[in-house]
């Protein structure tokens, strides 16, 4: 596949703290890459770098075609005092589209997204997220960058959004997105780039990675220092909660090690179950009764 954009040896520093370490990453035309990792792993900074909204402290960002048409979908989209058609009209004109072309494009997108043209202050989160994606798609970008596109949406809105993104992908747009929702990874992504403390922990095609099957663990009685040590296990993915009970998501193949570590540290396991929707076709949890749904 033809490479569209690449990052070579990118470091990003904010003052003394290094947020991204030596990132080598690229995306090809039509590819969809999910960027995963726990909060603070550097996902948003990497996305800003990809979209051209942040400059590397070291290393380079190379566009295969110049200028590369990039659409960016921020995580939060404010409820502006505009109707979607007004707002999109302004954005289209800023991008240099003529009035006629902009009107046609906006109408086509309104039909695709099935969005009512009401004041954005009256829109639901799902409707605002549609406007957010529409503004990014106005000029048919070659690369669409989305920062947690399903964040805060209810299940039906999530399904609708996934359908829209699949259609965008089908039209040949390269997509990269930071995600927490496994549903989005399994239904859309070709490749996963996993970040951990600003470094790429894993970057590979999803069908070759059955290890993506994940387990959710709930436990109590573990000292905070031990929790931090747990994060150093290669199979640790992210925390759902560090409270009581603590809840974490881990790779299935590392579950035994992590459970053993928790028990040896004096903790008690409350619940161990497959993380909903995180299974790839390569792993079938229904055949694993020794782990799935187990409680102590």
């Amino acid at each position: 596949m033809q490479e569209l954009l690449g990052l070579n040896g990118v470091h990003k520093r904010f003052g003394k703290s290094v947020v991204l370490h030596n990132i080598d990453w690229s995306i090809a035309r039509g590819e969809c890459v999910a960027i995963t990792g726990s909060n603070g792993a550097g996902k948003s900074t990497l996305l800003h770098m990809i979209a051209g909204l942040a400059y590397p402290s070291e290393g380079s960002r190379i566009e295969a075609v110049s200028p590369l048409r990039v659409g960016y979908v921020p995580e939060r989209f404010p409820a502006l005092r505009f109707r979607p058609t007004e707002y999109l009209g302004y954005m289209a004109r800023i991008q240099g589209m003529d009035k006629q072309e902009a009107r046609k494009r906006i109408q086509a997108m309104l039909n695709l997204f099935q969005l009512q043209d009401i004041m954005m202050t009256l829109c639901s989160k799902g409707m605002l997220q549609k406007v957010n994606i529409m503004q990014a798609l106005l000029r048919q970008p070659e690369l669409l960058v989305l920062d947690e596109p399903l964040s805060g949406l209810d299940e039906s809105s999530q399904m609708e959004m996934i359908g829209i993104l699949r259609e965008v992908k089908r039209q040949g747009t390269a997509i990269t997105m930071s995600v927490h929702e496994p549903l989005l990874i399994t239904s859309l992504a070709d490749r996963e780039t996993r970040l951990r403390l600003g470094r790429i922990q894993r970057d590979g095609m999803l069908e070759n990675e059955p290890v993506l099957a994940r387990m959710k663990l709930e436990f109590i009685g573990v000292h905070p220092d031990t929790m931090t040590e747990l994060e150093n296990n290669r199979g640790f993915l992210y925390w759902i909660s560090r409270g009581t009970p603590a809840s974490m998501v881990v790779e299935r193949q590392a579950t035994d090690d992590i459970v053993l570590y928790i028990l040896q540290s004096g903790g008690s396991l409350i619940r161990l179950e497959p993380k909903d929707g995180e299974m790839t076709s390569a792993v079938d949890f229904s055949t694993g009764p020794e782990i799935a749904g187990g409680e102590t």
Partner: protein
Amino acid sequence: MISMIRYLLASYTRSYRYFAPLAFIIISVMLIYSYRPNPIMSSYAVTSALLFIGSAWLGLNFFNHDQGRQSMLLIIHSGKPIRYYSAQYFTAALLSMIFSLFAVLFPVLFGMFDKPISLLEFALGYLGHVALALLGISLSVFFQFGFIENQGRAAGLLIIIMVISLAGQTLQQKIPSNIGFIIYVLPPVSTTIDLFMHIEDRSAISTFVTILYSYLYSFILLAIYLWTVCRKDAAALIRKVG
């Protein structure tokens, strides 16, 4: 650029955040002319000083009005950061020019002066008002939350600089002569006000140079601003709190 300015104007006016600085400017001008007759250029000196304060307030208010939430998108849509930041500056400058016109026209339309105003006085009055309004806008860009996140501190610093700028001529007489050069680093607000106060004593060249220097100072501030802001990550301009 024009499309961006139109969007920014629509976005700002719909936010209703303009109300406080606008009210300040209108009420101040109306108070100054609450009685008649008034001397032309001395009155313009006072209203231009007020416009300097009002424009700095308006600028800070305008640059912070959407808390940077749209700036990343506008930069991407416009293609280059400099297009967005220039459009943002020119939108604020446009608003201040409209307010300058109001400050200069109001006493003329309502016959508040002690004698009929000449075209030269009107032109000088307008150019002087715009010069100080632009100085206010050009100063305020450095105090938006993209530069100083704590806006309480930013407002305090801006007020201090405005006060020192307004008192520049007086300060020059008070400070030791070996650091007198500092006065030329400050925004040339007091020199422009002084020009209006004593315009009859000034030559045409002195008048021209004083006003031109104000514009040049704003232009230098704008150049420094654009140079600085285009090197910042657009993502850093979003307000992290609030």
